[in-house]
């Protein structure tokens, strides 16, 4: 293979135009009932079959030497808790640890013998047979930036701070390797709070894979009355104008596509078709439309950002999206945050009173996550969909008391702790109702089954049918393994 592909885009070979543009456009001044799609289909190319995904696949596999990906319809819902879920207030309780470690909450039993969770998660106790908890993942990056990059990319970041990726995030790699869904649904979606929706806020950057592999961003609180997804659906009057515009474009955009042997012109046409699908397809619009759900279902998930984002994720994977990232930060962006609570899970004492924050945040978390898990199982999607809940790191096992910036009073908190964290996995056809790994008596570091974030990603890739030994070329043309090390967590391999 040459060290670098000379053409970064699509090779012309795959975009051979069958001829010149259609001349069957009889009455060009009055388009009549011609579909929008056909306005954008110029020449022999049609996006209907979406050869595009096949092409991307071809390129992705080019470097591996052997194709071992399995074509399937599996998907992942990746729930990200920025700031770090406190493992000792959730899934790794240490009731016997000294008081300055264990905190104030008690563990409670679940429907699976041996699995206990925090008392703030009562709904979890009924479905412990539908999730597995990994207590032994760790890494070495204690700053949010480094930890985000470490977790999101499955690589050791070049710098320990900052959230601009130097290697692509897994959500982009999945998009690149799996290609298009073929029905207008974006392959990779990330749902985040508005104002936090920049590609680099949570190290979602596609780095050398290029902007084309960024996830489709859904910004805003889906529980808000005025929630609207950018780039999905257009207003009625705009739709009419778009029709006019497309009809004119069809008539005026007559440059021969075969002038451009790089295939970029053809690719632009095909993306225009796809974009119009996203903008106007009823199926796509519906997938993003939570009002299609019953009030009961919406209530069960919870009328807050966590719950409605969870419901959105379920609708998206049903419609064909393969990788949904949900960022759960502020559960209720429309309301003021209590002064002793934090925007997200970064529960230092200066940010919040960790126990008060848990009391405020956890019930919503409990409600949203269990609703999603139950719903996935009830709909028989538990083989198809794998839910993963993770965060940048755990929190210091030892409680630290300081004056809160907002509350202005001394209050307990926990700091960054990458040596230990808890990760929850549900569905994906994996064996559930189990605890994997263990931390020591004070919750400080794993003592059993020490795992890295990469083992988690290897498990995820395996579920998606992606060979995690795949190589993709970076800008220098060097083949980069999509996951440089790590292997699937055995206990989660069905």
């Amino acid at each position, binding site marked *: *293979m*040459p*060290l*670098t592909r*000379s053409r*970064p*885009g*699509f*090779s012309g070979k795959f975009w051979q135009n069958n001829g010149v543009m259609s001349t069957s456009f009889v009455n*060009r*001044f*009055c388009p009549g009932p011609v579909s929008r799609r056909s306005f954008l289909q110029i020449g022999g190319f049609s996006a209907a079959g979406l050869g595009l995904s096949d092409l991307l696949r071809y390129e992705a596999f080019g470097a*591996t*030497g*052997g194709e071992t990906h399995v074509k399937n319809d599996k998907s992942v819902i990746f729930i990200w808790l920025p700031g770090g879920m406190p493992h000792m207030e959730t899934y790794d309780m240490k009731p016997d640890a000294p008081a300055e470690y264990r905190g104030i909450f008690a563990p409670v039993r679940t429907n699976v013998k041996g699995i206990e969770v925090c008392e703030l998660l009562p709904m979890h106790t009924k479905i412990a047979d539908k999730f597995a908890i990994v207590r032994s993942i760790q890494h070495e990056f204690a700053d949010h930036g480094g930890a985000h990059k470490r977790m999101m990319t499955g690589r050791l970041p070049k710098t320990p701070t*900052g959230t*601009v990726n*130097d290697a692509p995030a897994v959500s982009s790699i999945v998009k690149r390797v799996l290609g298009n869904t073929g029905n207008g649904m*974006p392959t990779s979606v990330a749902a985040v709070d508005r104002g936090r929706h920049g*590609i*680099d806020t949570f190290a979602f950057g596609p780095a050398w894979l*290029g*902007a*084309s592999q960024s996830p489709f961003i859904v910004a805003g609180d889906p529980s808000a009355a005025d929630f609207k997804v950018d*780039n999905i659906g257009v207003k009625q009057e*705009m739709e009419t*104008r*778009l029709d*006019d*515009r497309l009809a*004119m*474009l069809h*008539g*005026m*955009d007559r*440059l021969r596509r*075969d*002038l*451009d*042997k*790089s295939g*970029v*012109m053809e*690719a*632009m046409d*095909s*993306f*225009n078709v*796809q*974009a119009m699908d*996203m*903008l106007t397809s009823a199926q796509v619009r519906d997938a993003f439309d939570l009002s299609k759900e019953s009030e009961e279902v919406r209530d069960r998930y919870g009328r807050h950002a966590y719950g409605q984002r969870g419901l959105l994720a379920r609708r998206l994977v049903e419609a064909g999206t393969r990788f949904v990232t949900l960022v759960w930060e502020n559960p209720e962006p429309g309301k003021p945050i209590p002064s002793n609570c934090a925007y997200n899970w970064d529960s230092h004492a200066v940010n919040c009173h960790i126990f008060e924050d848990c009391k405020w945040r956890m019930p919503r978390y409990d409600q949203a996550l269990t609703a999603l898990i139950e719903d996935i199982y009830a709909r028989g999607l538990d083989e198809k969909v794998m839910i993963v809940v993770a965060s940048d790191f755990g929190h210091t096992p030892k409680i630290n008391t300081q004056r809160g910036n907002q509350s202005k009073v001394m209050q307990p908190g926990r700091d960054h702790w990458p040596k230990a964290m808890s990760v929850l996995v549900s569905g994906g056809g994996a064996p559930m109702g189990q605890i994997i790994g263990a931390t020591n008596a004070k919750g400080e570091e794993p003592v059993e089954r020490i795992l890295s974030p990469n083992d988690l990603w290897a498990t995820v890739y395996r579920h998606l049918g992606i060979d995690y030994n795949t*190589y993709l070329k970076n*800008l*220098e043309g*060097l*083949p980069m*393994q999509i996951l*440089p*090390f790590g292997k699937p967590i055995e206990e989660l391999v069905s």
Partner: protein
Amino acid sequence: MRLTLFAGVLFASTLPGSLSAAPLTVRTHAGTGSIDLAGGDDRRQVLVMEGEHRDRTREVRFSLAPEGIARIDSTGWIEPLSDGNTVLTVTPPEAGATPLAVPVTVKNAKAIRRLSFPNDIVPVFTRQHCNAGACHAKAAGQNGFRLSLLGYEPDNDYDQIVSHSRGRRVSPSAPESSLLLMKASGEIPHEGGARLGKGTEDYRLIQRWIAEGLVFRPDKDPKVTRIEVFPRRLVTTPGSAQQLQVAAWFDDGTVRDITRTAQYEANEPERSKPSETGLVQFSKDPGGTAVVVRFQEHIDTFTVRIPLGGQVGELPAPVNFIDEHIHRQLTEMGIPASGGIDDGEFLRRATLDVAGRLPTLEETKSFLAESNPDKRAKAIDRLLASTGYADYFAGKWAGILRNKVDGGTEWVTRDSHAFHAWIRTSLNENKPFDQFASELVLAGGKSIDNPAVSWYRVVQDNKERMENLAQVFLGIRMQCAQCHHHPYEQWSQHDYFAFTAFFSTLQKKGVPKLPEEDIYFHNRKPAQMEHPGTKEVLKPRLLGAAAPLDIPATQDPRTELAAWMRAKENPYFAKVLVNRYWKHFFGRGLVEPEDDIRPTNPATHPELLDELAASFVESGFDLKQLVRTITNSRTYQRSSNLLDGNAADEQHYARFYPKRLPAEVLLDSVNDVTGSVNSFSRQPQAVRAIALPNERGTIESEFLTMFGRPAMDTACECERTGEANLGQSLHLLNSETIQTKLTAGSGRAALLAKATDRSDEDRVSELYLRALSREPDANELGMALAHLKKKRDLSAADPAKLSKEQAEKEAFEDLVWVLVNTKEFMFNR
């Protein structure tokens, strides 16, 4: 470059009465005449060529008489059997053709040499891709078995096979049950599949080596000094194939045929497909390409050209040497050239390429009206003198010189502005390029006094400094050689670290909390770098130089580096620059990628590249003169329209290849057509996107990110991508940003809608001139007028729903939308 090898070929035998167009020659690596096999391991690829360019090896019939001395298969692979003399008869398939007779002698057939691990076994791993970066040469190996990349460290590989895994990998007493062979042949599960079939030559070789007792190097095992492929250059027909012949020269004076042990790699797999045995199948498309042949760390390159063989017709008189070279090759390749462009097309193309913007309405009108025959050359001069030129090219250089703020302080931001201004000023006053590069390399002191020192602020690691310098100014990608011998080049780790040593005395004296006071200086000590493998301390050595330099501690070693770089005879410096600029104007480099110039990646027009580089040196490294030379050529001013005969051309400039407008140019052009301006933080209001100094603009602007403006993370132009993506479509078709530009009260659509004193035709024409530098044709005008009428009719039918004014405005908005969404707008064609 050596003389073409065809010169040494003698005819094996005369063939009177042959039906062939040219005489056949029978050849092995040792030449023509007789075939002398010495020793039981002396195998050869026999090649039967008709003339110089047609391979007939697989069409002729081979036979040997008497039998029992040697054997040959249908692919021309000959092996010794026993000592003696025999005759190889080569029978052409044509009826009545006279066969050729070649004497064959075999000596010492019983003498089998002991196999050598580096010379015989490692090449098998390379051929079979066992030691590819994706397999066992991964940093962690594969499944516990790790080989060095492409076998560059045979000692390590030997150790892995013989000593690791408790010796289970090889079993001399029962070679077939060695894990190495069982895995490789797929007898037991192997993730990489069955690579070596039992009984294949490669399998038997490894089997024999194991049985011989796992010798690393037998006594007097020679080392390879060079390899050579035959033929090296070929001109052939589309869809044909060529058997290659590869020989290795050893330091004991011996030569071996390594056709079946070398590795073949196509530079462009869609153009040629080499087989494991060196048979290269060419695609049906005309053009040129290359196959890299590799054996151990040695490489050679086979290049092929496949003419289209069409009617070229008359070519216009050349304006300068560019046209002469291009026309000569078009003639040789038989590809007809498209015609020249008209004035409107020229003005749009040149303005976009030289000044990074669309021509203004006024410029277009006056240029079209001008009758001076020199007007194109004059326009180029005007553009070169304009600020647009300096802005546009400063942006290009700021990108590859990585003028990054990277979330830095206010001071870093100011610093990046100063660096950008330094680049821009240098270009504007047309500072000789060698001086520019030299000032950059020698930069020292405080950034506040010398903005060029910013380069060292952004690129802090000495290895990375060297890599960036090599890629940007020499067109050499040294990155690979940091860890192992470069797979496509002569460069070794030794070269890498000895070249890095030029930066080893560069130090920064930091002032806490006053970063603007940081001083970069030459720390007076001898320059040196340690080789991480051998721990040898290396003195600075220039690339390609035999010996290191002795630089006294008092002298900054960078002065030697800069002097060497800008010397007229430097073989890299001018070449990569002119190639980089060529690509800017033509969309592809004479060497592609433009900053990866190496013997294994041959130029499409080597003589043109040489002459362009020489003329650049001759001009005193005058960048504006280079732009003039390129843009005044007929080649640059050729139409992009297809002719029947040149549709398939992708590398001979038979027509102009349309290029996408780069992100910044597209954004500025959308602004110019919609009548809006940019607003970026820390920049003057209405700043043009091409004038943005650092990567901040990309981060701030979704548009620039989406359309591929680089984040300045690498010194590679490839970081800028012209790829299409969904986000771009969504953006142009329906984004808030575009909608705002279209509907602005002071925007183009609003202004045109209000200009009711002008005719519809006149207003539509203005839009076309602004966006496409041409008048609309009758169809386009008809559609535009029909749309205006449709909107007016809608308004007339229900003025309460759509007012007359609003209808006019919307109609023009729609027209502007359509124009910026046409490919003609988004491309420079």
